[in-house]
């Protein structure tokens, strides 16, 4: 069966010796919307960096059935839209247009397609009028939306978002939740926002100590008080 993401027994230690992943296993099928929860330092962000080949640990990572290795990196990066937690890191170009065009341009798409993709992506996140704006002058909520547009423009098969609702005020958070609900892509979203998990994601995976310690329907996971308290979570 075709899987969008397949991670098996993945181990990784940072150069400073800190072990971040100790045998993480997770698979995501096309159309899945999966929340990834767990305490800080559980390895969520590290796992996400592996899905794009930015970090490469020991173990098996497959994206759209392709093993993550040097030859496949281009295809894999086009298939996995990775959005970092801090939008100021994601938006590094002089203008919003340049940032949203960055991905498609580096995929080698022709100019007319790049312009189309930028327009579509900005419309999808409700920021069509922002193309000429300078990222520095935007609010956090606006930056987060545009950060998502920067990968939507690459037409990825799966969106991988790191803490998309962190640091947003209630209104911006609500807007973001509605946006995520409307996006048709397969999703893997790491978050501490349990109420958002309950609202948006049918499936939840819990990470702790570099492993996926539980994976199942969100209702069942959030209903298991013992599991949640064992991993420092609250429903």
């Amino acid at each position: 069966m075709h899987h969008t993401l397949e991670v098996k027994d993945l181990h990784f230690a940072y150069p400073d010796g800190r072990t971040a992943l100790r045998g993480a296993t997770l698979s995501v099928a096309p159309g899945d919307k999966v929340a990834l929860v767990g305490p800080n330092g559980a390895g969520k962000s590290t796992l996400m960096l592996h899905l794009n080949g930015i970090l490469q640990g020991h173990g098996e990572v497959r994206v759209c059935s392709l093993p993550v290795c040097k030859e496949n990196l281009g295809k894999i990066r086009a298939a996995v839209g990775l959005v970092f937690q801090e939008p100021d890191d994601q938006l590094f170009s002089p203008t919003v247009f340049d940032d949203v065009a960055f991905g498609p341009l580096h995929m080698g798409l022709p100019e007319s397609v790049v312009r189309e993709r930028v327009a579509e992506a900005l419309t999808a996140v409700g920021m069509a009028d922002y193309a000429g704006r300078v990222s520095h002058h935007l609010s956090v909520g606006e930056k987060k939306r545009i950060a998502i547009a920067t990968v939507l423009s690459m037409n990825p098969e799966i969106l991988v978002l790191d803490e998309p609702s962190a640091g947003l005020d209630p209104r911006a958070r609500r807007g973001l939740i509605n946006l995520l609900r409307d996006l048709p892509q397969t999703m893997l979203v790491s978050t501490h926002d349990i109420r958002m998990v309950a609202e948006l994601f049918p499936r939840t995976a819990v990470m702790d100590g570099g492993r996926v310690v539980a994976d199942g329907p969100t209702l069942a996971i959030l209903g298991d008080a013992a599991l949640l308290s064992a991993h420092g979570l609250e429903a």
Partner: protein
Amino acid sequence: MLHINLADQYRRGTSLIHRLDPRTKILAVLLFIVTATILPAGAWLPYGLLLAGALLAAQASGLGVGFALKRSFVALPFALAAITLPFTVPGQPLAHLSSLTITVEGSLRFLSILIKSWLSVQVAILLAVTTQFHELLWGMRELRLPKPLVSIVSFMYRYLFVFADEALRLLRARAARSGQGEGKSGGGLLWRGRVAGGMVGNLTLRAFERSERIYEAMVARGFQGEIKTLISPPLTDMDRNVLVGWVTYLAMLLLVGFLF
């Protein structure tokens, strides 16, 4: 949110100068500065014509004649680097300052440098206030400036504000905890120096970590070592006309400067 608006000099507008292609404006400014530089010393008529050109451009930008004129004086202190000229250039003595002799030729050269730099700064200011920074970057890239250089300026501009905000937050955090107690407050000079040094180090580390994350974000979107940009449209007829007119004007100035 804390925000610092450090260097945004751009003034919105729809004037002829605002609408010109950034490439045209950058070229025009560079040519103006080159012309001013190679004009001989003491060529007063061409200097006057250069000033007229700069003022005309300022008028056409809709910001008014005084706008760049007023701001251009900030550059004068830098021209003081040439202050030794009146004393060192040999020639007819003009005055004596104890054991130093001021020569006519030297004073002439100094005055010319002063005027030239003042004129050059005026057009540079005009360029900066009528062109958005990202347009300037784009123009520089299009004019084949070395790509790494343009990228460095681009990243610097993007993150200058982010770091200024970060530094501001650090300063506020320090101020918020700098209360006055029973004893002598403020601490010793050494201690305060250590605190300030720690803050600088902290900021440097954050910058370093951020640069890693930015690079990861670039790689995640397919970056392979070279920043790609869209192909640019050709210059419009208006831009061509303005450029041709400008070059003709500068060439005539040079002619006047060297012939008369």
